């Protein structure tokens, strides 16, 4: 109630003050008008000057009077209520015709929205800073400086070293044959033949696996011009699914400091497909689901699951 009263008093003082401002402005205008007009035509020069000076003094006095009045009223008006969260724009709420100018409610909405946005953006940024995403987020902050130093050392490995690592991995798995090709320059392309189940083409950059594609054992791996076909996908849905999962595995096994470990882990994982058609799903116990065998292999346990059973 007190607020309402206060507002009422203030409003009255406001209208008085506005009137006082108008009066002040007109008296100031009068001063400049008389100055602009200059001295009126009087017979003697002294008479002319006298009239002009008294007029000027009168005008200045009325300005002074109006100014004093305004100052007096301004103390009555007081400072606009600072307690309002929206400061001066809070006064918009005093507008009695809400329906025509819903400015105040819109303003509140916008204010809330921007508050929320700021809060969520803060949360997101703190979360993102915690997660060091393995491939791309390294460019952030301090690691951006380290990155150029790390990458070249592992990207430029001697060809002999790469050959050694691959042949060592090849000897680890007797049921898996790995052939190494270098069709274009120094980058190696591996042709992995896993038992009589599948053939995988693994495209390397130094010791990093860049891309992999899995096809059936009896599918063609060479294109018409006799080169390794590293692009076209398998004709069979089962191997298309395995290709998808192998690409997931590439992203999962990441250890930039020790690329040979990554290749070894990937090959160990790939080797678990030797029983692609023989192992039933570990969850539902069946061989087929929607016509496909269990194409997913767990990254740690290497157990077989259907794509839909793995969660």
């Amino acid at each position: 109630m007190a607020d309402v009263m206060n507002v009422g008093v203030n409003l009255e003082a406001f209208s008085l003050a506005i009137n006082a401002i108008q009066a002040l402005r007109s008296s100031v205008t009068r001063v400049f008008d008389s100055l602009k007009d200059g001295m009126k035509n009087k017979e003697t020069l002294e008479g002319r000057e006298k009239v002009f000076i008294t007029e000027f003094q009168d005008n200045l006095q009325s300005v002074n009077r109006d100014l004093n009045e305004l100052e007096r009223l301004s103390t009555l008006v007081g400072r606009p209520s600072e307690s309002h969260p929206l400061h001066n724009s809070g006064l918009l709420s005093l507008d009695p015709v809400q329906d025509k100018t819903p400015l105040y409610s819109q303003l509140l909405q916008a204010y809330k929205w921007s508050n929320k946005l700021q809060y969520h953006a803060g949360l997101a940024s703190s979360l993102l800073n915690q997660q060091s995403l393995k491939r791309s987020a390294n460019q952030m902050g301090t690691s951006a400086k380290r990155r150029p130093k790390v990458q070249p050392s592992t990207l430029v490995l001697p060809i002999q070293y790469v050959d050694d690592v691959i042949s060592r991995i090849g000897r680890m798995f007797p049921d898996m044959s790995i052939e190494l090709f270098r069709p274009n320059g120094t980058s190696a392309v591996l042709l992995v033949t896993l038992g009589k189940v599948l053939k995988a083409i693994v495209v390397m950059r130094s010791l990093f696996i860049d891309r992999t594609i899995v096809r059936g054992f009896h599918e063609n791996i060479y294109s018409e011009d006799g080169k390794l076909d590293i692009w076209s996908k398998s004709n069979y849905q089962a191997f298309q699914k395995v290709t998808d999962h192998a690409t997931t595995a590439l992203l999962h096994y990441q250890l930039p400091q020790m690329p040979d470990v990554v290749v070894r882990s990937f090959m160990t994982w790939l080797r678990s497909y030797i029983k692609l058609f023989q192992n039933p799903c570990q969850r539902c116990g069946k061989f087929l689901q929607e016509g496909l065998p269990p194409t997913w292999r767990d990254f740690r346990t290497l157990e077989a699951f259907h794509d839909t059973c793995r969660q």
Partner: protein
Amino acid sequence: MGVTCVCQVPVSEGKSVQQTVDILHKKLEQLGAVKQGNFWVDCETYHATGNATGQPSKLLYVMHNSETPLSCMALFEGGPGLSADANFDVLMVKLKSHFQNAKGHKVESRGVRYRYCDFLVKIGTVAMSSSARGISVEVEYCACVIPGDCWNLMKEFMQSFLGSNTPELPTVFTSKAEGLSVPVDCMDTMSQYLELFGRVRKQQVLPGSGVR
């Protein structure tokens, strides 16, 4: 070319051949299989004539498969087989003096070809001199060529639409000297069909079952 299994499905009691085939079609379509054209497999019988050496005369079967339209397969009964170009038929005409075509012994299976994921299913009506004698079902798992690897998987698939008529592992695979881990070839499929046609030939003519 994947692992194939050819089997004969008995005609349901009180139903005609065509009705039983329709039931199988419906079951496959409910499973989600998609119709993908037609197929046919045929087999002609030849008697070896001019048997000078006194050996018992062997039968030679010449077969065609719509899956390999440019080839022609010739199999001796229980003996070796060969696959040749389609004009092998012309050669057989020239060899009339040695091999005589047993007319009226031609058996063929015609029907619809279904695809379900990596499976090919061919449901055919086996006909001999234009009378329907039975139903053949061929299931091929195209993604795998080793019968020992994918047999359980295929069996599970066949159970889903053949139920109790699901066959056992075909003898053509089990009788191989090298075992179940040898990749299959098209002759394995043809010898399964030959075996099925042999059974159909011996069986009684089904009463009232003309071809469509």
